[in-house]
Structures are given as C-alpha cells and as structure tokens.
C-alpha cells in the first residue's frame, strides 16, 4: 500500500473557506493531533517540533502542565502527576483491579460510578485530566491552522463501552471542542491505510496501544469501510507489559514490592525502557538505585516473553472471536494492519503473523496512523470535501440489554450490530395494580446482571393500575453514529403513555460538565463570555454556510419562491446578528433559521434517498450488475 497522499479535487474550496478540522488520537500513553493541509494529511507539531504529546498531566497548587514538561514530576510527585487517565475514563474503582491502580493514583471516593483522583489542585475526574490534554492539542491545532478549530474527530478504542465514550465526549466539551464524531481507532487506521490504495476485501486491524486493545474486521469496497465485527479488551495494553517487566525486576531483586510511590514510578519508567529496548535487542542491563530498591542485573528477551505470553494469547483469542462473529476464517483475510506502539513487541508480531498466516502491514508509523485516519475523516465531516465518496459504517462493540427477573440480562441489541440502530422491547407488569417499573440498562455479553456493566437505572412511573400482565411497557434503545445510547420507555396498552429519556452519563451530570467547563475557562484565564460569543458565531456561520450551499444546489428544484425568500431573510437576519456581539441574539436567530430550514432539510434528504438507487449512482455503485444486465439485452 502506498503512503497517504491525497490530492484535492479540482473543485476544492477556496483555501480561505476551508474549515479548520483535525483528528485527535487521545491515547493512553501519548496523544496526537493531525490535519489535512494543502492536500496532505500530517501530524501537527508543537513549537519545538515534537508531535507526540505524552498523555501526562501535572497539577500543582496553581498551575497545570501537560505532556513532556509534566513527565519529570512523575517521580517526584507521583500522585499529582496523572498518567494513563484514559484507562480511568468511565471507570469505577471496582473496574480497575489488576492494573496496580492503588500504587499509581491517590483515589478519592468514586462519584457517580467514576473514580476521582486527589491532587494538589483538588479532586480531579479523569474527564478533567483528559480535557487538559485535549486543550493543549486544540491550542496546537489553532496555532498551526491559523485559528480556532471548526471541528474535530476524536478517536476511541472500538471496544470502549457507552460509559467510556460518554466520558470522552464530556472531556471534549470541557476542552471547548466541537466534536464532529467519535471514531473507533481501528476504523481510523483502516482509513489511513485504505483510502489511497483503493484496496478491496477483508482487512483486520490489530490495535494494541498503551492501555487498550482492539481488533476489528472490515470490508473495504469503493471507499466504504464497513466494520463487520469488533472485539478486544479496553483494559489491556503496553502498560500491562510494563507492569510485568516491573514484576520480573522485583522477583529478580528478591523484593516484596513494598516500594514508596516515587520509587514505584521510577521502576515503571525503567520497566518501559527495558520493554522498548527488548523490541530490538535480546538483553537489557538494568541498574536501579532507588530509595527503596537497589538492584543491578539484566533482563533477557526470553524472560520477558515468558511473562507476557499469557496476555499475547489473550489478544489472539480476541482476534479469533472476531473472525468467528463474522463467520470468516483467517485464510480469507486480505490484509492485516498493526496499530499501536505495543505492536512493536516482537512476540506480538510473531503471534499475529502465525495466527493469520501472513506478514502484517506496518508501513505507516503505528503511533500515528490513528490520528492520520481521524484527520482524513474530520476533513470530510467538516465539509471540506463535499464530493468525497468515503463512508465509514461502524458497529456497536458490546451488546446492550435490560435486567429481567432473577438478575438476568435480556439482550436488546447484540454486539456487532451496525449503527445507528434503534430497537424496541416490550415488557409487562408482574403485580396487579403496579404503577411503576424499574428499568436497568446494561452493557456486556454475560447473562448475569452482576457480570455486565450497569449503564443507567431509571423508573417509569404513572403506569395506569391494571391487572398483572396487562400493561405493555415499551423500552426503546437508540444508538447514534457515535455509538452513544439513549433509552426511553413508555406504556402503550391504554394509550396513556408515560415516557422518560435517559442519556446515561457516568460520574458527570450535565450540570457538572457545565461547571467544569466554566471552571476550566477560569483556569485558562479566558473570558467565558468571549468564548460563548465565539461559539455562537461559529454555530451561526456554520448554519449559514451549510444552508447557502444547499440552496445553491437544490433550492431551484425544491423551494418555492416564497420559501426561498423566507430562508434568505432568515440568513440576512442571522448575518446581521453575527455582525454584532450579542450572544443571545445570535443564538435566537440561529435557532429561527434552523427551524425555518427544517422542511427544506427533509426534502433534500428524501431526494438523496431517491437518487441512491436510481440512475447514475446505481450504475456507479452496482456497476458490475448493471453491465451484466446490459449484456443480457
């Protein structure tokens, strides 16, 4: 496959009208931002020319530092220096067994199901920590691209559950980013590899990062990236290899492992160094002179491999399961792509190669490929490439269900169902005169409630009293294109419907997000009012741009002169508001124009759908069938 080089089509937008879009890989260990500039997708660098931002945040009483500058504090102030926050997103203490979390973080009591960390700047949510990283990247994007970002695509592990996705969204909101889409990391990698090569067929993306593991199977065809199945483990990655190296060192040093936090951090740093060197050499010398551990010796590649063999086997097992879900055998796979820094470990490479019976592709730097793919998708979503045929069709990674009698989970949507999706399930009352029902939403593959992740619980009240079994309670699950779930329930039998919609939100309520948003603006010493004005202007301008383009294209066919005039007046009113600085007026005019254009949007949609399977587009997409039909005549 060729490296990425995208040439802008002839009808490319005027450079001044191009939107500033970026892809962000918010990683466990490192984070990156990339963008398409002058037709080339590239990772954006900071002022000193470095592209990788270590995902480390240091809090002092008065200041926050992120990235390389925060790293030195790891050893001196381990609990004020938060690393691997991604593994904590949407997670409670109970979820974190096995990553030696206690030694790395100073936990405050969980709040709303998510861990909280004690730091010198107060108790922090992993969402806030992630937001600090996103802010630095956002600023870098704005500085490089010449203004605030219009929209970003943020990548998440495909195997992230709803809680983790929602937490990522919340972090972006706190960082003041306009998120166009949450994109699954393996899908992003497939885009980076596949877009330019025109490859067709089945592709496996094997993505082992610092703290998460994903394996996805995609079908590529004419610019469509269709995810057929995905699997993995959102709590398995290179960090675990580091832990095992550290354990090995402790064993060899005959230490019980009772280290102080600072020594522990230094040991982990050394463990990572050893692991990385073992990717290119068979033995690494180690000299540790820590306050609670002194040891000199060496670590052999074979010892390291013996330690990690179990984890590597786990990843292959996940790959086998993904193929099984899609009913595909390893020999049918056309390409295998390695993503994530941890795929540099030789044992991982050889295990993947042995399982699929082919050498995996590694042409694009596995640390950057996800950010590059996200940038390509962001460029399309923001509207810079209106004629682009690229389309990503993704799936739900983990089944969604409801608790039923006896602590069992009834699945409502199974894993690997294409999104967006909506499914309804009917339940009934089990007691005479029952007027309320508890709805418990869960995610996972196991049968028992206790083994699945609890996403939300709410009560449907106001059910008319009836005999047991007479009420019809319909629970509707909707999953949008970001993979985010909303649930509603209503009573159908009597026509008296009581309904409630929940947006599961973990640890953070909407008010909390708003508060953090405000607090974070205060932190950055930015004027919140100025920020709101800026956002309102961006929203308003975006609507004008989109609507004007749509009217130019479809107005004559779909709008009456009156309708055209109404919309034009609306645009003028909004433009007038945009020239001023009243946030409320801009928002109100944006709202008005948006409502006025609803019908037009619906008509355009219908027209698109009609076009899809008729005329030119059918020839294009079903080309081969069409040819066969012609030949038959």
């Amino acid at each position, binding site marked *: 496959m060729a490296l990425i080089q995208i040439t802008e089509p002839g009808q490319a937008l005027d450079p001044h009208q191009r939107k500033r879009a970026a892809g962000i890989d918010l990683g466990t260990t490192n984070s990156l931002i990339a963008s398409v500039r002058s037709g080339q997708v590239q990772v954006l660098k900071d002022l000193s020319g470095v592209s990788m931002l270590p995902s480390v945040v240091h809090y002092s009483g008065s200041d926050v530092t992120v990235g390389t500058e925060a790293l030195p504090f790891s050893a001196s102030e381990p609990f004020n220096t938060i690393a691997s926050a991604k593994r904590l997103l949407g997670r409670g203490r109970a979820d974190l067994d096995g990553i030696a979390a206690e030694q790395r973080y100073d936990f405050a009591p969980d709040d709303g199901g998510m861990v909280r960390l004690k730091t010198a700047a107060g108790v922090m949510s992993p969402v806030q920590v992630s937001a600090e990283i996103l802010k630095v990247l956002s600023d870098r994007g704005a500085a490089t691209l010449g203004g605030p970002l219009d929209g970003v695509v943020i990548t998440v592990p495909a195997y992230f559950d709803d809680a983790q996705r929602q937490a990522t969204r919340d972090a972006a909101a706190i960082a003041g980013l306009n998120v166009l889409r949450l994109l699954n990391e393996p899908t992003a990698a497939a885009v980076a590899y596949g877009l330019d090569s025109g490859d067709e067929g089945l592709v496996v993306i094997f993505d082992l990062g610092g703290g998460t593991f994903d394996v996805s199977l995609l079908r590529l065809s004419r610019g*469509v990236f269709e995810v057929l199945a995905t699997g993995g483990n959102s709590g398995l990655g290179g960090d675990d290899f580091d832990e095992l190296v550290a354990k090995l060192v402790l064993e060899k040093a005959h230490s019980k492992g009772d280290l102080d936090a600072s020594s522990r951090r230094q040991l982990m740093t050394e463990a990572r160094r050893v692991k990385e060197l073992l990717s290119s050499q068979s033995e690494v010398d180690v000299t540790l002179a820590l306050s609670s551990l002194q040891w000199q010796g060496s670590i052999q590649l074979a010892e390291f491999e013996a330690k990690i063999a179990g984890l590597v086997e786990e990843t292959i097992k996940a790959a086998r399961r993904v193929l099984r879900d899609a009913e595909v055998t390893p020999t049918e796979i056309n390409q295998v792509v390695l993503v994530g820094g941890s795929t540099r470990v030789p044992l991982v490479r050889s295990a993947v190669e042995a399982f699929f019976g082919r050498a995996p592709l590694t042409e694009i730097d596995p640390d950057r490929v996800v950010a590059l793919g996200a940038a390509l998708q962001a460029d399309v979503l923001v509207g810079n490439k209106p004629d682009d045929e690229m389309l990503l069709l993704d799936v739900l990674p983990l089944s969604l269900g409801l608790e039923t009698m006896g602590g069992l989970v009834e699945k409502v949507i199974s894993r690997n169902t294409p999104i967006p999706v909506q499914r309804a399930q009917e339940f009934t009352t089990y007691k005479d005169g029952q007027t309320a029902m508890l709805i418990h939403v869960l995610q996972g593959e196991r049968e028992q409630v206790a083994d699945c992740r609890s996403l939300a619980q709410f009560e449907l009240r106001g059910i008319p009293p009836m005999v047991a079994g007479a009420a019809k309670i319909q629970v509707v699950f909707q999953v949008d294109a970001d993979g985010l779930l909303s649930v509603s329930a209503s009573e159908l039998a009597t026509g008296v419907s009581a309904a409630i919609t929940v947006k599961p939100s973990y640890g953070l309520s909407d008010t909390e997000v708003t508060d953090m948003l405000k607090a974070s603006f205060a932190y950055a010493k930015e004027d919140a009012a100025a920020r709101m004005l800026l956002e309102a202007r961006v929203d308003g301008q975006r609507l004008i741009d989109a609507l004007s383009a749509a009217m130019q294209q479809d107005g004559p066919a779909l709008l009456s002169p009156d309708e055209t005039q109404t919309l034009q007046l609306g645009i003028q009113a909004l433009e007038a508001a945009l020239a001023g600085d009243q946030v409320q007026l801009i928002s109100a005019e944006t709202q008005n124009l948006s409502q006025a254009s609803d019908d037009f949007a619906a008509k355009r949609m219908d027209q698109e759908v009609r076009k*899809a399977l008729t005329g030119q*587009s059918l020839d294009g997409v*079903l080309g081969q069938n069409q040819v066969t039909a012609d030949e038959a005549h």
Partner: protein
Amino acid sequence: MNFSQNFFEIFQIDVAFDLDGPDLSARYQALQRRVHPDRYAGQGDQAERLATQWATQVNEAYATLSEPLARASYLLDLQGVVLAQNPTLDPAFLFEQIELRESLDEIRQSGSLTRAEAFIQALAEKQNAEAQAFNDYFKASALSEATICVYRMQFLSKLSQGAKALEEELLGY
C-alpha cells in the same frame, strides 16, 4: 423512499425469500452513502436527526433481509400472517427438538468443544433445509405451510443460539 415503504421497496428488489446477498450488500452501501449522518455533519440538528432516522431504517431493513429467519417472518408479516406466540406443532418435530435439547445438555456436561461444533454444524444443515422448504411453500403461496416452517426455524434458531453460547463458553470467551 419513505418510512411507509417496506424493506424490499427500500432496496428496490423483488419481494421474495431468495435473494442475491452480494447485490443486497451493494445496495445497502449505496443507500448508506446517501443517508448516513456523516454526510450531514455540521448541517444542523434537523438534517443530522433525519439522516440518523434514515440510516437507522436502512440498517434495520438490511438486518431483517440478511438473516433468513427474520426475512421469512417479515415476508409472512407483509402477507398479513400473524405469528402465534405458542404455536402447535407436529409431535414428531417436537419430539426431535426435545432430543436435540437433551443432546446439547449432554455436550454441555461433556465439555467437548468438538462435539459442540459438530452439533452447531448439524443444526445449520437443518436450518438450511427448513429455509429451503419455506422458500418453496412461499413461492407456491402455501402460506400456512410456510408459517409452520417459520415456527420450526424459530425452534432451531433458539437451539442454535444456545449451542453457540455453549461454544463460546467452551472457547473461554
């Protein structure tokens, strides 16, 4: 396309049980290219909401038509057949189901992955045969016979799900 169109109309294909899988996939992708919310990102809430509704509908149609039991049930539904919750079936068929269920329990106790896989394979053949029978009856407009095929497919599908869950368990997933 509108929401009152049936799933076959959405894909502009003939209302039939027999269908060309790769052709359906190609049509699915062609529709998603037009309606997927990614195509309407940043064009306002209304456009994105509509796109999400359409994309959801296209996914639902594709899921229904791709899977034989769902497709067969849907065809009957279009013909106005209401499927019974607890249908009465031929005793011989039911007896066979009981036997199959007992075999599955035995396999569970034996913990043999090979036997579980062979069982799933055997079930798949039965499911194919039943689907073929449905196709013949449905083409001949013999709806009551076709309906019985669907009931049988339901039994087999439930059993197959149980067997696959066992297989996953034995694989250690």
